[in-house]
């Protein structure tokens, strides 16, 4: 007899958590994990494994959890995933492993993400399991960017016995896991724990390194390194291009989240970096970054926090769980609405002029195109607006690497199977190739690139 529903995970109550930055879901106890693991049917055709961008042997690790062999469970996960505590928290499982779970449809799918998180957290509290490291090959690789793609390549290549150095532009490793995703969704000590584990495997992390300036990709190849991986992400914020966008109080989501997460502005003045949040905050966009921004605004003291999104609820690109949490916390959704002007007073934002939208014919993305409804303009008063409509490729490496083929958006052209770029020995993956996507897709790209880089180094 299978429970139709997932074993619930305890959470901080919404009314309480909007006043702190502590993590929202609190994790499974061992008994809860075992109870959830017992729901797995151990299907021989393993749809979940095919649904996982890094191909974790999900039935096998769940079987270990069911038998209370938690150490073995995390070992199975770590064979394919260097950042399980991160993925267990931020992967869009409903579209991946859980979306194709045999139970899904009739019942709720097995809560694979929660079980992954449980195993990773269990490891942190109990015993560290290291991936086996092959003997030294004498080959050296450079990884540019310490985000999800770069960290994955580093772990995978180190495991294969190569010497790995990561160059990171910011003062800490982690990329979007550190500057973008908020503390209440992904505690920063957990990210650092995963990075420490890589360092213990022998990966060298160099922060404050502006590759493209102090050294070019070619310098790295001509110097100490046999191969280079570029994982510099989609860091360039997009703006709407409407009047008033440079008013004080208008932030890119990158700035709003970086101040808060990376620089810990929510602890100002103990930390030196400030942030300003009005009573009414509007976030423009419908993705995970928009949900993160609107929920962050509440925690920074906003009385009301709105999402303004130009399509309808069905098209919201954010994970279901993020939308659910946002609604629980009282985020107000102003759907089928688009900003057309920011209105200021003495240089500071006072209101946002919006227009109502309706859905027309499907566009290139297959989604129905939002069309403005003439004469439906109205104003929303707000002192703060956060623009969360996506990011373009970080320009530093593309601009400083002359032989690197780019597409018309400035992203690096790389083979989808191998990550190989137009320069022999240089691989790329993650958002710098695909444009803004998910953590796990970047990790999948990193994993595929590592396989290809390993083969390349073996022949070299």
């Amino acid at each position, binding site marked *: 007899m299978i429970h139709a529903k997932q074993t619930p995970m305890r959470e901080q109550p919404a009314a309480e958590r909007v006043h702190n930055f502590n993590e929202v879901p609190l994790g499974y106890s061992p008994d809860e994990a075992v109870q959830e693991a017992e729901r797995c049917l151990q299907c021989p055709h393993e749809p979940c494994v095919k649904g996982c961008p890094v191909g974790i042997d999900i039935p096998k690790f769940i079987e270990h959890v069911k038998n209370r062999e938690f150490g073995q469970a995390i070992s199975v996960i770590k064979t394919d995933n260097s950042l399980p505590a991160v993925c267990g928290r931020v992967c869009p499982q409903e579209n991946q492993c859980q979306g194709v779970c045999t139970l899904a449809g009739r019942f709720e799918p097995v809560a694979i993400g929660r079980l992954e998180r449980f195993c990773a957290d269990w490891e942190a509290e109990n015993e560290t399991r290291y991936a086996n490291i092959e003997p030294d090959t004498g080959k050296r690789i450079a990884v540019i960017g310490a985000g999800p793609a770069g960290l994955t390549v580093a772990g995978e290549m180190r495991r294969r016995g190569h010497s790995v150095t990561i160059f990171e532009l910011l003062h800490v490793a982690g990329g979007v896991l550190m*500057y973008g995703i908020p503390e209440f969704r992904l505690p920063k000590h957990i990210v650092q724990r995963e990075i420490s584990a890589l360092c213990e495997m022998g990966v060298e992390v160099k922060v404050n*390194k502006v590759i493209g300036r102090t050294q070019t990709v070619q310098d790295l190849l001509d110097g100490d390194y046999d191969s280079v991986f570029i994982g510099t992400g989609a860091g360039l914020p997009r703006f709407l291009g409407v009047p008033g966008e440079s008013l004080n109080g208008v932030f*890119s989501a990158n700035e709003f989240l970086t*101040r808060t997460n990376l620089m810990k502005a929510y602890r*100002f003045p103990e930390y030196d970096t400030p942030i300003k949040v009005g009573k009414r905050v509007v976030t423009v966009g419908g993705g995970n970054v928009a949900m993160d921004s609107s929920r962050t605004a509440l925690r920074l003291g906003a009385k009301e926090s709105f999402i303004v999104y130009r399509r309808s609820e069905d098209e919201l690109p954010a994970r279901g769980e993020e939308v659910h949490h946002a609604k629980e916390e009282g985020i107000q959704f102003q759907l089928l609405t688009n900003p057309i002007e920011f209105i200021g007073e003495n240089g500071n934002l006072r209101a946002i002029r919006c227009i109502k939208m309706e859905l027309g014919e499907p566009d290139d993305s297959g989604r129905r195109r939002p069309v403005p409804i003439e004469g439906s303009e109205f104003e929303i008063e707000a002192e703060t607006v956060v623009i969360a409509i996506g990011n373009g490729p*970080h320009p530093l490496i593309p601009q400083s690497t002359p032989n690197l083929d780019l597409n018309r958006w400035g992203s690096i052209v790389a083979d989808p199977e191998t990550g190989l770029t137009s320069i022999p020995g240089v691989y790329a993956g993650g958002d710098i190739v695909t444009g803004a996507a998910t953590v796990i897709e970047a990790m999948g790209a990193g994993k595929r690139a590592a396989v290809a880089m390993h083969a390349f180094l073996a022949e070299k």
Partner: protein
Amino acid sequence: MYKILTKRTLGPGIREYVIEAPDIARVGKAGQFIVLRLHEKGERIPLTIVNVDPETGGVTLVIQEVGKSTREMGEQFHEGDSILDFAGPLGEATEIENYGTVVCVGGGVGIAPLYPIVRALKAAGNTVIGIIGYRSRDLMFYEEEFASSCDELIIMTNDGSYGKQGFVSDPLKQILESGRKIDRVWSIGPAIMMKVCADITRPFAVPTIVSLNSVMIDGTGMCGGCRVNVGGVAKFACVDGPEFDGHQVDFDLLMLRQGYYHDEESCSMDAYMAKQAEGVEK
């Protein structure tokens, strides 16, 4: 960690630091900047490069103690100490060519980043007229450095305690009105000074380069906080600049944006002062 090789006090609240960062010292150029962070709780501070020495690996910076972080640096960070983070070089370098006759106008702490530009322009064969201005004599620094690099040097003080009394814009205007052929102007200093200089050169159609110090976090194109309106287009000072065509810059907007965190800056300074006072009592 990045070691402080030397520290020199140039005037009240004005310090010159040489920080050990060999990879930046090897490639850093006039016009570019670095971002530093003093300690774990520190903010990322963008500072324009004043000099690089590939031999010693030193990067020279000049700070003026205007906010909490610069004050903390000036008071607490000494020769032999280390600062936690130091990254660069960031931004685009100054376009150095032989333009002919150029005027380089510097005000206050902006005189420091102007110095490497003056030297590079001189080395490129330009006739360099320097105009540097200070509030008063006790705040003066780099007089000798400018005197030895400029073909002509005019020093202004607002209170007349040294050189000529007035603003740097006064001699700039006189030079242009005298009919002398000026091929290009650099103006680095407070936003209002750069605005006034750009307004003076505009009717003479002399290309005028300014270096913008807008509020930024990462300094690498990621936050967009430093966006400035240049010719009606939003540009990022960190990656598109920091130098721009002064005739195209919306300085009023820049000044509004620079003032956005005024209250927080005071709050931060008060907290720092209170902490220092507490330390003294103990």
